[in-house]
């Protein structure tokens, strides 16, 4: 396009595009700056991996919006950024955690743990503890009045104060010392302000200052006590060991805990990489050998039966209501959808109440009519049945909705042809309706199967895995599925938090489910072929 041929409109267009590219650049830079600030904050807080993700996000956004050739990525940039942040990062972080002992006792970093152990002090046998009052000068130098158990008082300077005497005698009139209060502490000292308890407490320097004789320094230990404290452990950065100053015992670093040879441990420990220990522990856990087989078998039965029952009931209802002769089906169909609209947790708890062996309406009715009182929560097969009943109730409306839609899409001429060929109703259902239906709802069935395979809410809220399996050595119940069992193993019953162990288990579960899904997708391919052949 030559300069001479520029028309007014073209000029206007160029200006607009020039303007909008300036606006784009400005906005992108603004977003980058904001993200950069977050990255900086993250680094200062020590979240290095998260900061790396943010740097990647900045790179993606800048690349997509500022490099003209990359404009086709613009539509994906935000999605990619969110995907990195909310999907990829948590997955990588979980994988990383699975190889650490992050959890109770190992929550903090090595630097934090070393600082805490170094801060531990002890009172030597000859050491004394005192009552104290602090005085502060405008230049932030301090004096400390002390009173020992025998009632002797003294005033000490800071260790690094450039003074000849580190101790002052408590005599009113000398060294600017004013009147004494009933405890014997000066009410005033010239050039110094007496700190009351709270102003002493808000002074962040005070606990870190060493007072008195450099040979045996005095430190404030609490609002009521100062003492001649010595550090209990000395850290050797070369060997990565701690030495106890009282006993001489050496503690070396074993998987994030400083441990002596006799097994004595220093607290706190820190979050350390422990290799495949979590996986080994999971695979060799005594609980895994016994109940896991029972649990896995039930997990498959549960997922399969849930799918089968919800699908069958849903399909049955949609076939019945698909009959054009049926009256009032709209109202009935709406009523049947109600279980789907109530939050499942509430439904589960209502069922739990209804099936209560002592107070529940189900047993009251069964008892008065048949004289039966099944113990739904304590007999294994009854508990499993109850779970399936509740899950069917929760799940059939979904399949009713899905199948009633899918049934409409089956061409009616096939049925007509079948009728001409003399097929019975059953034959039509088995040979036409079901195969064609499976083609369209097959993927949904897989989704439903996987959902039920991991249906933690139902198992946990309804019965928490119970009744317990008598032969199990860990907490395992007859209705436990893998996910609820693993939850109990890693977190529940006051066992504390074991993030590393739980991450390892979730990785194992992830692999299990991935393999299962793959196998099932193979299976659906087969269905599609069936569909094509029809």
């Amino acid at each position, binding site marked *: 396009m030559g300069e001479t041929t520029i028309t007014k409109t073209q000029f206007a267009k160029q200006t607009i595009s020039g303007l909008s590219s300036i606006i784009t650049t400005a906005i992108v830079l603004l977003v980058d700056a904001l993200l950069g600030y977050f990255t900086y904050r993250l680094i200062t807080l020590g979240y290095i991996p998260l900061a790396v993700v943010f740097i990647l996000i900045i790179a993606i956004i800048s690349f997509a919006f500022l490099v003209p050739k990359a404009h086709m990525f613009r539509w994906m940039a935000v999605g990619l950024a969110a995907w990195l942040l909310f999907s990829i990062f948590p997955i990588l972080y979980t994988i990383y955690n699975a190889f650490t002992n992050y959890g109770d006792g190992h929550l903090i970093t090595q630097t934090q743990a070393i600082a805490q152990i170094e801060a531990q002090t002890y009172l030597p046998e000859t050491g004394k503890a005192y009552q104290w009052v602090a005085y502060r000068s405008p230049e932030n130098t301090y004096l400390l009045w002390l009173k020992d158990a025998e009632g002797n008082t003294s005033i000490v300077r800071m260790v690094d104060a450039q003074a000849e005497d580190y101790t002052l005698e408590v005599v009113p009139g000398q060294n600017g010392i004013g009147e004494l209060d009933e405890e014997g502490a000066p009410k005033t000292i010239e050039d110094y302000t007496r700190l009351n308890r709270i102003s002493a407490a808000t002074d962040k320097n005070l606990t870190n200052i060493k007072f008195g004789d450099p040979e045996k320094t005095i430190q404030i230990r*609490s609002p009521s006590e100062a003492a001649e404290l010595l550090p209990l452990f000395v850290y050797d950065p070369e060997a990565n060991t701690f030495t106890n100053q009282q006993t001489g015992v050496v503690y070396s670093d074993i998987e994030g805990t400083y441990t002596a040879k006799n097994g004595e441990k220093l607290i706190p420990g820190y979050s350390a990489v422990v290799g495949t220990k979590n996986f080994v522990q999971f695979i060799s856990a005594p609980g895994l050998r016994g109940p896991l087989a029972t649990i896995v078998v039930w997990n498959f039965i549960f997922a399969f039966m849930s799918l089968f029952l919800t699908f069958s009931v849903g399909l049955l209802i949609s076939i019945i209501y698909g009959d054009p002769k049926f009256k009032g089906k709209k109202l009935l169909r709406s009523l049947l959808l109600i279980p789907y609209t109530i939050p499942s947790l509430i439904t589960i708890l209502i069922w739990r109440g209804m099936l209560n062996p002592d107070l529940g309406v189900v047993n009251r009715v069964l008892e008065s009519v048949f004289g039966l009182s099944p113990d739904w929560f304590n007999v294994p097969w009854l508990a499993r049945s109850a779970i399936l009943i509740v899950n069917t109730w929760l799940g059939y409306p979904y399949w009713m909705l899905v199948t009633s839609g899918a049934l409409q899409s089956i061409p009616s001429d096939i049925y007509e042809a079948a009728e001409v060929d003399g097929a019975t109703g059953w034959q039509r259902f088995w040979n036409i309706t079901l195969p064609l239906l499976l083609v369209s709802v097959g993927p949904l069935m897989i989704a439903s199967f996987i959902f039920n395979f991991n249906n933690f809410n139902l198992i946990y809220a309804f019965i928490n895995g119970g009744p317990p399996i008598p032969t199990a050595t*860990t907490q395992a119940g007859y209705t436990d599925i893998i996910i609820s069992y693993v939850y109990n193993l890693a977190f529940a019953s006051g066992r504390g938090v074991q993030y590393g162990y739980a991450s390892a288990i979730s990785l194992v579960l992830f692999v299990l489910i991935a393999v299962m899904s793959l196998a099932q997708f193979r299976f659906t391919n087969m269905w599609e072929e069936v569909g094509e052949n029809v």
Partner: protein
Amino acid sequence: MKKSVMLVAIFLIASMVLGACATATEAPATEAPVVTEAPTEAPTEVPTEASAGTLRIWADEQRAPVLTELGAQFKAEYNVDVVVENISGIRDQFTVAAPAGEGPDIIVIAHDQMPALVASGLAAEIDLGAKQADFLESSIKAFTYAGKLYGMPYAQENLGFFYNTELVPTPPTTWQEVYDISKQLIADGKVEYGIVLGGTSYDAYPWMTSQGGYIFGVDANGDYNPADIGVGGEGMIRFGEMALQWVKDGVLSNNTDNTTAKSMFKDGNVAFFMNGPWEIKNLREAGTPFAITKFPDGGTPFLGVQGFVVNAFSENILLAQSFLTEFVATEDAMLKFYEADPRGPAYKPALEKVDDADLIAIAAAGEGALPMPAIPEMGAVWSDWGNALTFIFNEEKTPEQAYTDAANNIRIAIASKGMVNVPGSFQSLVGCASDWMPYCAQTALVKGDDGKYTGTFLIPAGDYECKVALDGGWAVSYGDGDANYKFTVAADGNVTFIFDPETTTLEIIVP
């Protein structure tokens, strides 16, 4: 036109993404904390002066308003802002927030959550000074870990023995009386059952202790000893047999669901049950005629203690301690906590002012009780201990079998701290589930007076290998140099293992 729309859209989405990140970084725990009442107005005489500091407290919804009120006073007097945040699941959020430097200065928790915090380096030592004497000794003990105090208690609670005063005019003092009264009431058609349990572990514990049952033994210092597990002991089994018999006799309901139990007592379907002070309000509202007495045959419940713990990563540890000892440890403040949520105060001057007869009765029922074990090993106890009673009631196991199995499972789960074991190729021959099990209780060595660990096992003739493993795991283990210890047993006999922790060597004496 289209372009500008796109730009606006991108900007909006970007800011949403940013917004999401912002909350994620500020509260790395799970949810952004809900600030109930930040003391926005500062009723000081010197409003222009900047505040001298900020104290952040995480409390539950019943403690938060009281603390907010105290915070306003604190601000007025010392010009320090107190921000009280109402958080649910304090412990879990704290374990994530505190190491990141985002935690509050003070949290409110139950005493049994404290040891894990100490072990993780998240709780700071507390010095209550002279005020320590004003607290109930048992509550101070509950917040003491390895000889050091890590919390300031405010409330102490335990179960009491509830009875329906309309059905039972005079409270029973022995289980035999409970049984006889129940039998009579059932025969008269007044109740369905005599007594019902609200659970299988904590809620049944006073009955267990009355029969001599216990969870962990207590050493000379009064500390729990995780090596002495009482779950499989005689007292516990005696309780199991008794409970089973009572169920068979129709006196005890085989229900162990808490909600069901409450409802049965509330409706007068049972005459007795064991529950805590939290149930008093419900029963009063329902109009059930009830009173509370001590447990029959001297049974004692577990004590639960609630208190304040200071964050070890706080920059205001002294300030936090001062706030607690000078503003919270006062009769007024403690009574306010009590009014907000009637649990027995742990602060003696406030406790003396409590005049609620039922609460006093509950406190009496808790006399001589021990705090719920605040040792990490307790986590391994609950499920097995509780399941045992379920197996007994379902008649899947005999009481002896049920409690013995439970005790064995607990031993395995604890994989005791301090356990010295000799895992090796002989273990399955002496009663272990398999060979090379570092946590098998059967082959654990016992510490002698000389500081050495010894154990003697009957091993059949053969060649064997073993190692020494500490704490029931392989993290710390010793071999003969880099190799395993090898030994040969010529004829079946007792093999003695002696481990010297000083030299970390194992001596094996074969017959």
